[in-house]
Every structure is written in structure tokens, then in C-alpha cells.
């Protein structure tokens, strides 16, 4: 965990050095359980920055979103770096970006923050109800101390932390220029039991499940927009020539959309779970992603977003690749 003052001082230092053009981090949000992502360009704004268990957003998503505005005549484009604050899971997105050459290592300054987990809004609402006022939440080794509407309480991890945190294998950033705070101990492991459980169901049961879930989808594309790995210049979903998916929201097209989305993340998903968090219809999107993650791990012994020198799984070729994936 990190002292917020250390974080702010580092941000001030980096911003005033003129090395970076902007810094992406978190600030207090308008809804209690979730901090808001923020982009600051000046050292004077650094005091807004926070880090606690409400900082669930993945700031790495914003690195690739920056729009390149036309440069006025006579001026030079700002080619300074972008600084980004990352938790363990967020840092994997940066690594995967580097693997996919979304940008190069020299383009980013990474402030790595060790993390003991972030809270799940849905779980918290069940315990405390809605939280219009800022919530203070500090994850500790044995639970989360949370202050909602003036009332402080300590809750067990299982009750309140996001599912991704309960199986987190990378609590410390896997890549960083400035590691802030002391490293934390790894507390969990991932056995993919959730996927194995689901796999046991019959094809009919699985289909019935997804039919119901996909029927709920309103195609708001929030899952796509929040995903750090969805950064194509033009998304296949909006392409008209050829049109892979029609825009109507019916079961057939929704299914196509979700399968496309999941398959496009095969060997790329770094499991920040943002897609599922932002879904207004509570579709368990990660279940599909997790299945692919498991398959990729079992078939190719590949884990995305860990090694910045790795080859992207589906854009590289190895004669020894297993052929079981061919259906």
C-alpha cells in the first residue's frame, strides 16, 4: 500500500519536470464506492490524486484513447510521455499494450502501486446500501476498513473485495518505472474453479444460460469502451464494409457481438474485469473471457500481460503449436 502523500509528491515531481504531457490516476468520485479516473497535466492538480480500495478503474484504458488533435501551423506536436498510475492488474494491461505495440516503452512513465484489493460496488451496496457521499476504504491484510456515511466498519475480504482480487496473482505491478510504497504479499491463487464448474454443465444448460444473459444485452458497448485491450482505430462492431454484426439488439446479433468480443480478447485479456463491472445489465461477461484465458493457458501455456518481451499469442507462429484448438 502507498501513502497518498508519496503518490502526490511523485506526481508533482514528474509533472513539474516537464517529462510528461499528462498523468492518468484516480481522484475522489461522485459515487462513494468508486473513485473516478482523472487526467492531470499540471503539478498543482496533483493534490487531487488518491489511492485506496475504491480505485477500481483501470487507468491503462485511457492511454490508447488519447486523440491526436490537429497541430496548429507552426507548432510542434507534443511528443512528451504519458504517465500512468497502475495497480497490479492494471500494469498487465500496460504490458500487453507493449506486447501489441500499441505504444513503445519510452512513451510511458509507469507509477506502480502495490494493491491489497479493491471493493466491488455491487457487494458493498448489498451490505451498506447506496453511498452518495465519498467512502473511505482501506484494504488490509485481514479485511477492509470501510467508512460509509460516517460509519466505520471492518468487513472480511470475501464479503466486499472484487472477485478478481480474491484470485489475484499479481498484487504488485509487473512493470513500473517508479514503484511507490512497499510490495504486498500475494494472498491468493487462481485455479479456474469457476470456469471448471461452468464447463461441467451440459451444452443445453450452457446455451440456456447464455441465451438468457445475452437477451439482456442492450448493446451499449460499455464493456468494449472500458476494456483496455479494445483500442482498434475502427471497431469491427461498427464496420459497415463488411458488416460482421448488425446493430439490432436481438438474441442472434447480441450473441455474435459477445462471441466476437470474447474471441478478440483470446490470449489478450488481462482480467481486470472492467467489462463486467461496467455492465448495466449485469451480464457475467468475464465468464466467457475466463474460459478463453483458461484454454489459452492450457493449450499454449501462455499468459498475456506478464512479459513485455513476449510475442502476441495469435499474431505469432510456432511449428510446435498444439492443434487441439482447431474445432
Amino acid at each position, binding site marked *: 500500500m502507498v501513502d497518498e502523500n508519496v503518490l502526490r509528491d511523485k506526481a508533482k515531481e514528474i509533472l513539474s519536470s516537464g517529462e510528461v504531457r499528462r498523468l492518468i490516476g484516480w481522484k475522489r468520485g461522485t459515487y462513494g464506492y468508486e473513485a473516478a479516473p482523472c487526467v492531470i497535466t499540471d503539478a498543482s492538480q496533483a493534490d487531487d490524486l488518491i489511492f485506496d480500495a475504491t480505485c477500481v478503474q483501470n487507468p491503462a484504458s485511457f492511454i490508447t484513447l488519447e486523440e491526436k488533435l490537429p497541430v496548429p501551423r507552426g507548432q510542434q506536436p507534443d511528443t512528451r510521455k504519458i504517465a500512468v498510475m497502475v495497480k497490479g492488474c492494471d500494469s498487465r494491461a500496460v504490458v500487453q499494450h507493449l506486447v501489441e505495440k500499441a505504444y513503445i516503452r519510452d512513451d510511458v512513465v509507469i507509477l506502480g502501486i502495490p494493491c491489497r484489493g479493491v471493493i466491488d460496488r455491487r457487494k458493498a451496496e448489498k451490505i451498506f446500501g447506496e453511498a452518495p457521499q465519498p467512502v473511505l476504504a482501506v484494504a488490509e491484510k485481514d479485511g477492509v476498513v470501510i467508512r460509509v456515511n460516517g460509519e466505520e466498519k471492518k468487513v472480511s475480504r470475501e464479503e466486499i473485495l472484487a472477485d478478481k482480487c480474491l484470485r489475484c496473482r499479481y498484487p504488485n505491478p509487473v512493470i513500473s518505472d517508479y514503484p511507490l510504497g512497499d510490495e504486498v504479499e500475494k494472498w491468493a491463487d487462481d485455479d479456474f474453479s469457476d470456469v471448471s464448474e461452468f464447463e461441467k454443465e451440459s451444452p443445453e444448460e450452457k446455451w440456456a444460460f447464455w441465451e438468457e444473459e445475452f437477451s439482456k444485452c442492450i448493446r451499449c458497448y460499455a464493456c468494449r469502451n472500458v476494456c483496455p485491450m479494445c483500442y482498434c482505430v*475502427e471497431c469491427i462492431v461498427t464496420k459497415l464494409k463488411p458488416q460482421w454484426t448488425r446493430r439490432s439488439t436481438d438474441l442472434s446479433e447480441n450473441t455474435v457481438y459477445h462471441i466476437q468480443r470474447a474471441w478478440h480478447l483470446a490470449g489478450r485479456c488481462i482480467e481486470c474485469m472492467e467489462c463486467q463491472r461496467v455492465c448495466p445489465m449485469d451480464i457475467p461477461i468475464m465468464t466467457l473471457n475466463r474460459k478463453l484465458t483458461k484454454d489459452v493457458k492450457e493449450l499454449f501455456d501462455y499468459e498475456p500481460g506478464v512479459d513485455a518481451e513476449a510475442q502476441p499469442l495469435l*499474431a505469432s507462429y510456432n511449428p510446435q503449436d498444439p492443434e487441439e484448438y482447431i474445432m
Partner: protein
Amino acid sequence: MINYRPRIGVYICHCGINIAAVIDVKAVVEHASKLPGVVVARDYSYMCSDPGQGMVREDIEKEKLNRVVVASCSPRMHEPTFRNTLKDAGLNPYYLEMANIREQCSWVHEDPAIATEKAKKLVEAAVAKALLLEALEEKEVDVTPACLIIGAGIAGIQAALDIADAGFKVYLVEKNPSVGGHMAQLDKTFPTLDCSACILTPKMVDVANHPNIELMTYSQVESIEGYVGNFKATIRKKARYVDFDKCTGCGICAENCRLAGRIPSEFDEGIGYRSAIYIPFPQAVPAKYTIDPERCLQLTKGKCGKEGPACAAVCDAKAINFEQQDELVEIEIGTIIVATGYDIFDPTRKPEYGYAENPNVMTGLEFERLVSASGPTGGKIIVGRDRKGEGGFEPKKIGFIHCVGSRDKSVGNEYCSRVCCMYLAKQAHLIKDKLPDAEITVFYMDVRAFGKGFEEFYDRVRREGIRYIRGNPSEIYRKGDDHTLIIKVEDTLTGTPMEYEADLVVLGVGLEPRKDVREIINLFKLSQSTDGFFLEAHPKLRPVDTASDGIFLAGCCQGPKDIPDTVAQAKGAASSALIPMASGKVKVEAQISVVNKDECRGCGFCVEVCPYSAIELVEENRQGNIIKVASVNEALCKGCGSCAAACLSGAIQPKSFKDEQILPQIAVLGVKTE
């Protein structure tokens, strides 16, 4: 053309009965005629024939067709044919789409009803794609009028002479210090018994003296880049440690070398010896000495005797230079001929023949050196001499073994090496000539005397009293302490197991791909056939071409062959290489990849996967921002589509195989009719 409503003509081929025997062609025509955009649908017994093509041409004119679908065989077979048909009729050749209803349908399905349904589907899919075809432009690039030939064996020499005689520049690169290759090692050639050196050395001298040939011996190709017509090669000229211009080839250095007569000669297959400074053989071209850097005392130990290197001391021309360095030369060429030859099978991989233990078991090539007048024994058949040339004996009983390392799955060589039957017959004849009293037995599986004059020669050899026993020896071992060998064999004609005594056994070793074949493959992006030799573009119709335009094959690197076949192929490769050079222009692939710059994010995955190095990232100024986008070199791209597979955002696509063109095809195939 976009303004025109598509008017499609569909032509279903019977291919004799290849298609019509299984598929109800009339039903497919009927189905096709109702498809959207189709104006005419016809069938014909052989669409590729002149009347068949004439039908298409006529319809293009009369019916104002602007798209043509031919349902017949694989596009690999006849796409070029029908493209020309369209071109002749004034239509862009890329308005053609083919449906393969032979290989993918009639040949693989038995049930006519299902096969006909599938044929209908395939035609429908082709029509769906035809609606979206685009006219493509065929471009031409200039050709550098020079040819690089790798390997100066008989194949490389012949190809070099032909191209040079036609008036084009040739760079002939040879790895060894002399040209000549394996043919220079041979004594007589079957079946005419010409002296190999006598017919080869004049050609070797010719390549050295030809004004159009730049001979680069003791050199290796380091890298190749570019494409047909415009290759760039880097050649490493290895240091000879002898000044090429000063050396007169007198040979005093070799006589005075401290290692004289101590190093097994590669040219004599290890039965003769040489110095550390050497020429491979007396007729070597160029007749310039070379110091073996792995053996020379001065080069390996930094010290040669007390007085320093004797070779340098005795050289009047002051040609020896231990400071010489490798030299890199860059050349530009239009075409390349690969003539890298072969290696002989290593008989230690058949331990039952006892090659490693018994000096009087030798390979056919060693025997060539033994029997050669220019060999270490001066052509006398004496086996088992020591390094100084003393001792040894004249063999009385000699066995020849066929198919050592050929037609043998146990060593991974299923193929016939094509030369062993005849060279063993020739060698048996040569022994009979020199040692008339010798008892000669040849052990064979089959005798394949297929070439011109081969059967006659084989007959002649048998009449000379040489015994042919049909059987593949199971074991060869030494009997007691003397040099007598026992050949254990079953005569398969009578079914009797036998043991033969021999004091010399010659193994008819086969031909294998070179051990460094991988390096050559990586260098030239060649493919191998299952036997490991280089793969030609088509086994029958393009036997000297490779999959890479402008790169041709000659000689045994493509597969085992005898000297006449090698020369014939070399001449073929030479004339194929001359075509682009003589015309001065080559057509480049029109179905190349195109980049949608608006979708490209400049990651460069396409650059990494492109097997032809045809893509690069270029900087583009977009409203003041410098961004990187992929750019395709139109001359290099072959339209293989690897880039499209690697592109995460679908920004690069091969023309004629764009997603938007293929998707409707898939859609048709995915929907069930009736």
C-alpha cells in the same frame, strides 16, 4: 465498371467425365442461371479447350458480360488460362472467379446427389464473390540484367556458360577453393566411359575466362534481399591468406608446408593427403593456393616452426599474407540459380556394413578417387595404404553393394538416388579392366538401367563376367585378423542364405540433400519436398522454378540425377533465368495486400510475419502529428495474406480476398437451400 450492373456468365465444365460422372452438370447450370446477376449459364465438356474458351469470349462480346465464373478444376490449374481468356475478350482478367468442383467435389464425393448439391453451393458462392470483384492492374518492374549462380559444380558451370554466352552478366559463387564440384572427383562417366575430368576441365577453364562471368570461389552468399528483377546479394569472399593476384600456382609452398601430406584431402575423400596450403586438385580453377585456416599452424597456433611459416619463406611471388581478412561484396542481380548440389550418404549410419571399422569398406566416391589416374594411387587399385603411401594390397575379391542409404526407410531416405546402379556397374567394369582376374560380385535389390544406353551398358558389364546377386546384404564383418570381409546375404531369387568373402567392398552410397540445406533454405526462402531436396514450383510443368519468382533450381539440389540430366536441367534453368533478363521487364503480382491507412495503428505485426519482407512502416504526417503506418512494396508482395491474418485491426487485406469479398461467399455456404 462499378457503374455497370454486374452481368455474370457462369460456365460449368464436365472435365470429360472427371466432373460429369458424379455431378449432374445440367442441374448445376439450371441452379446457376437463377442466381442474382447471372446472365448466362452454360456447360461444356472441356472449358479449358479452345472451343470452351471461345464460348466465354463470344458471350463476353454478345451478352456484354463483365464478370465470369468458371466452375471446373483448381484455380492453381487453370486460373491463368481463363484470365487470359478474359483479357483476350477485353475484360480485366481479375473479373474471373473460379469454383473448384473437381478436386473439392467430384473427386472426393461418391454420392452424386450430395455432390451435385455441393457443386451448386460452390458455384453460388463463387457468384456471390464475383459480384464484388474489383479490376486489378498488372504492373511491371525492370530487371537487372545479371544472374547469381550459387554452386559451381557441373550444373552451375553449365548454367553460367549459357547465360554468359547469351550476353548477360553472371556471378558464379562457389564455396570451395575450386570450381568443379563432385563431377571433378569422378574417374569415368557411365555409360560412355568418357573421362570425367576431360569433359569437365575445358568448361571449368571457360567459366574462369569468360568475360561475362565473375567467378567468386571460396565465397559464400551472406544475405539476399529484394525480389525478381531486383535482388541484392551480399557475398562473403573468405580469406585465402594468399594474394589472389600474386599467386602463380607454382606449388612450392605446398611442398614446403610443415603439414605436407598430413591432412586428409577432401577432394580425394580422405584417401589422399594434402598440405595446409593447398589447391584441391591439379586441374583446379582458379589455380591459386589457399591456406586452410583450421589446420595451418600459423593461423591456429600463431606459430609455425622455429623459423616461421615455410610457405611464406619459399614463395617467390610474396603472395602469402596471414593478415588477410574476409571481404564482403554487394552485388545487384535480376535472377538467381541455386545449384548447390548434394552430399553423399554417410555409411556410418548403416553400421551393419562396417564402414567405420574396416578400411577396405569404402564408398563409391572414395573408389572413384582410388581408380582415378589423378588419384592418390595413380589409378592403381591398392587398398589399405598408409598415409605415406606404403603397404596396402591388391584386392582379389570385390563386392559392390547397391542402395546404401537409398530406398531405405530405416535411414529416412525412401527415394532412389538414380545414379548408384550405373556407377557401380561402371566401377565393376573399371576393376575388371584393371584386374582381369578379380572376382567381382554385385549385390542389388533391383537394377534400374533406365537412361539412354544404360541397359546396354549393364548388359555389357554382366557379359564381362561380373556376377549380379539379387539380395541386400544384412551384415559385413571382418573374418579373423586379416583383411578378409564376410558379406552375409540372402540370394532372394533362390531364397538361399549365403556368405561371400571379399577383400574390398564398395558401398553404392546414395545422394542426400546437403547438410547445410537449412541455411540455403533460410537464405532463399525455398521449400523442401518430403525427401529433403528443394521443391520445384510444379513437379511436371515447372521443374526448374521455385515458389519465389526469379529463383531457379539446377542439378542435384532439386533431386538426385546423373550428369546428362543435370546439364539438361542447368540449361533449362539458364533459359528460364534468361526470360526475365532478356525481356527486361517482369510482371508483378496484382493480387497484393493493401493497407487501409485510417485503420492501421502502426504496430508492425504485418512487417514481422511477411515472408517476403514486402511491408515496412513509414512515417506519415497527419495534421501535424507524425504517425506510423504500414506500407506494402508492390513488387515484393505475393498476396499470400499472412499480414491480414496477423493484423489485429483488419487494416491490411489482400486484394481479391478482402473480408468484404469473402464474407458473402461464406454466408452463401452457411445457409441451407430448400
